């Protein structure tokens, strides 16, 4: 029903952040803006020749005592970072969210795009056995098991796994339920890792084909992995990688400053500004990692009138939202998902605040003196701030916005069908996936209730178009429509901020969170 590939990077980890922030500890509150000079991008690829050896300790917010190494259960950033160290997917996302071959050496489709032959590269699991077509089929069938609720199951939905088969030791023929031009996105889907055939338990000695092999694991505390010398892409530079869990941002920063870890994931903009170019630690900003939006439900008043939606587009002062809610750590949005990603319609003019025009549109729509409730929650950084700022902006256009705080733990489920306006965010995923998950009639998380048969048809047309340029043109048409009257008021894209010790080299500064080079440690070394 929907060819969604990656699932957005989950943010439940952020739930925990709220806690101490409430007591004031995390209260290095978001203020002002630094704009933030680019990160040390030359630090990434070209900083001398890599050195072998050493152990790197990386601190992530984690899932506590319930953590698991089962890659198909990966849910949090920490889970994914561990999973990608131990396992591989057939494909993964490049910095522009296009699918890049990984365990798959190549893929080719038939004319109608509903049969794909995927050829695996020569790779071995940590026990020395080769990665075969059978392993791939086993892994995908495990994910798709109807009795389970693995996150990647919906992504693999286009595949008819009963009809798909191995046509050689390293060749799989995937039979799809319908034409899927973006099938490689499915291979790169969130959590679609390849495990050895018949593997079930993953907490004791998990075996994967990834760059690191298992050493030890204590849920909620630490996981130690050692270099896998026979990794197909070449052995990692590091001897060992240790993932440690520290849920408080301040604890991650302190551990980094105190030399207890060399890599700290997910830092606050204020922390980044305090330490950027101070010489103690390096700050890496991953651009375009988290889309920030207000979500208008297009099936109910007042947003069932497109003029009201257009008025809201014009009410938002995006710069002020980025500076205020994201502490300046991000860039403004243009009501379209995926700035900088493949197929992004960057030819459309940047939308600016225009209160006069907004008032006129509201008047035309008969919505003067409009009152609307904006749902928000402390579920993600900057949500409540964004809601407050937008309330003040709307006031200038004569719209009364009442901000309503919701529960953190059930926020996403609550806003899916309830209310009319809410704060929204999304991790990086291909634009095609954003559309299929959220903007089709049968999308499972269609929070804007955007349901248009002609729009669905355009999506099917794109998926049935072999030629990439033609496909890009279809995506552009869809994006123009969303830009003109869609339900997502996308005002910004937040940076994802990472801190590293000074000697850490090879950390990619381009890859948005949730792509191949994000949280990737086989290419990192200690100088």
């Amino acid at each position, binding site marked *: 029903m929907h060819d969604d590939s990656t699932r957005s990077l989950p*943010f*439940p980890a952020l739930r925990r952040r709220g806690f101490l922030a409430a007591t*004031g500890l995390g209260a290095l509150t978001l203020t002002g803006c630094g704009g933030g000079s680019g990160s040390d991008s030359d630090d990434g690829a070209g900083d001398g020749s890599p050195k072998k050896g050493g152990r790197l300790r990386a601190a992530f917010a984690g899932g506590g*005592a*319930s953590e698991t190494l089962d890659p198909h259960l990966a*849910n949090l950033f920490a889970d994914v970072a561990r999973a990608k160290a131990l396992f591989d997917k057939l494909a993964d996302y490049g910095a522009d969210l296009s699918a890049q071959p990984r365990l798959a050496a190549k893929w080719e489709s038939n004319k109608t795009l509903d049969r794909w032959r995927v050829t695996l590269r020569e790779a071995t699991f940590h026990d020395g056995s080769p990665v075969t077509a059978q392993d791939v089929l086993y892994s995908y069938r495990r994910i798709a098991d109807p009795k389970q609720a693995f996150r990647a199951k*919906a992504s693999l939905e286009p595949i008819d796994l009963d009809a798909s088969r191995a046509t050689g030791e390293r060749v799989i023929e995937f039979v799809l339920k319908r034409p899927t031009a973006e099938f490689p996105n499915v291979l790169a889907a969130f959590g679609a890792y390849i495990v050895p055939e018949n593997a079930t338990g993953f907490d004791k000695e998990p075996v994967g084909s990834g760059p690191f092999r298992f050493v030890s694991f204590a849920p909620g505390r630490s996981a130690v992995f050692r270099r896998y010398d026979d990794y197909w892409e070449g052995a990692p530079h590091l001897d060992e990688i240790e993932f440690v869990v520290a849920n408080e941002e301040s604890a991650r920063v302190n551990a980094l400053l105190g030399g207890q870890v060399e890599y700290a994931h997910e830092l606050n903009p204020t922390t980044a500004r305090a330490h950027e170019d101070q010489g103690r630690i390096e700050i890496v900003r991953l651009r375009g990692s988290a889309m920030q939006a207000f979500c208008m439900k297009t099936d109910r008043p007042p947003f069932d009138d497109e003029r009201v939606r257009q008025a809201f587009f014009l009410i938002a002062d995006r710069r002020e939202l980025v500076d205020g809610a994201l502490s300046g750590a991000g860039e403004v949005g243009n009501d379209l998902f995926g700035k900088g990603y493949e197929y992004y319609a960057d030819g459309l003019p940047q939308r600016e605040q225009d209160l006069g025009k907004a008032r006129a549109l509201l008047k035309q729509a008969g919505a003067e003196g409009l009152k609307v409730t904006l749902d928000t929650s402390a579920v993600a950084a900057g949500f409540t701030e964004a809601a407050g700022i937008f309330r003040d902006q709307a006031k200038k256009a004569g719209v009364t916005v009442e901000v309503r705080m919701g529960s953190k733990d059930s926020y996403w489920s609550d806003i899916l069908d309830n209310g009319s306006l809410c704060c929204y965010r999304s991790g990086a995923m291909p634009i095609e996936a954003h559309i299929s998950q959220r903007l089709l009639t049968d999308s499972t998380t269609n929070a804007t209730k955007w349901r248009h048969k002609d729009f669905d048809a355009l999506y099917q047309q794109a998926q049935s178009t072999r030629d990439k340029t033609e496909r890009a043109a279809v995506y552009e048409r869809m994006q123009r429509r969303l830009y003109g009257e869609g339900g997502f008021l996308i005002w910004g894209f937040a940076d994802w901020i990472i801190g590293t010790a000074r000697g850490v080299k090879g950390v990619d500064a381009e890859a948005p969170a949730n792509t191949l080079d994000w949280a990737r440690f086989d290419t990192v070394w200690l100088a």
Partner: protein
Amino acid sequence: MSGLRSFVARRLLLGALQTVAVVLLVFALTEALPGDAAVALAGDQPDPARIAAIREAMELDRPAWERLADWAAGLLHGDLGTSLVSGRPVSRYLADGFGPTLLLAVLTVALLVPAGFGLGVLAARHAGRPVDRLISSVTLAVYAVPEFALGVLLVTVFALRLGWLPPTAVGYGADLLAHPAALVLPVLVLLSRPVCSLVRLVRAGMIDALASPYVAQARRYGVSGARVRYTHALPNALAPAAQQLARTVDWLLCGVVVVEALYVIPGLGTVLLGAVAERDVPVVQGLAVVFGVLTVVLNLGADLIAHRLAPRAGVAA
């Protein structure tokens, strides 16, 4: 003595009832929270079909009372159940979290008792004089500082500026004893407020006792000053302090969330926080049982000690 025994028996029975009440209340409150484990797990992908599948896999589609009854039946056999989220036994969650919590509590109490009583007696002996004023004002000031603020301050000064101590215990896991330096700051933070309240209680109790007629009587009999203080006055001053101490131990053992989060110590507080956020009801219930039993036992112990120290106070059951 049989009076005491029946008192203990009554208190234990009452304690068991209290624990049951706590568990029921916690269960009801957790059920009343918006969303359940399936919703929490689905996070920002609240695909209704997936939530339904998770709910079914977790057996959350069964009525609440049935789940509670199953869990309670297991409890009678000493089985605390399994986590909804990970499928691991709840007892393992408790065992893993209890080590670090117990270690911190033992260290804190080991320092708290001598420091609290010593300073309290010292202040009482010099009541109204500069030593007393100094102790009283410092303890009042420190008591006014919340743990998280003190924790951040100590990390900034001693770990980040001076570099004397590690800022957190990240990565040390349960093996905290092997890294004693990492324990200094958390124990100091844990100690800060209890020591102040204990000092003030002991001081007040001592001053009261020293001014009481029986102490004056003892003095008239020519009993030496030290003996009056330590064998006559102090036990009476300790009775309220013992109960305060029991509350402190209870607080320490039930997981001190702020300190654990700040210093990355994977104790019971961290387990509780995670379990509530995940709506992992069996784990929350398991913790409620443990916390309930601890509270009952510690308070009973404190009452018995208070009874021993000052039998005249009687024991109110």
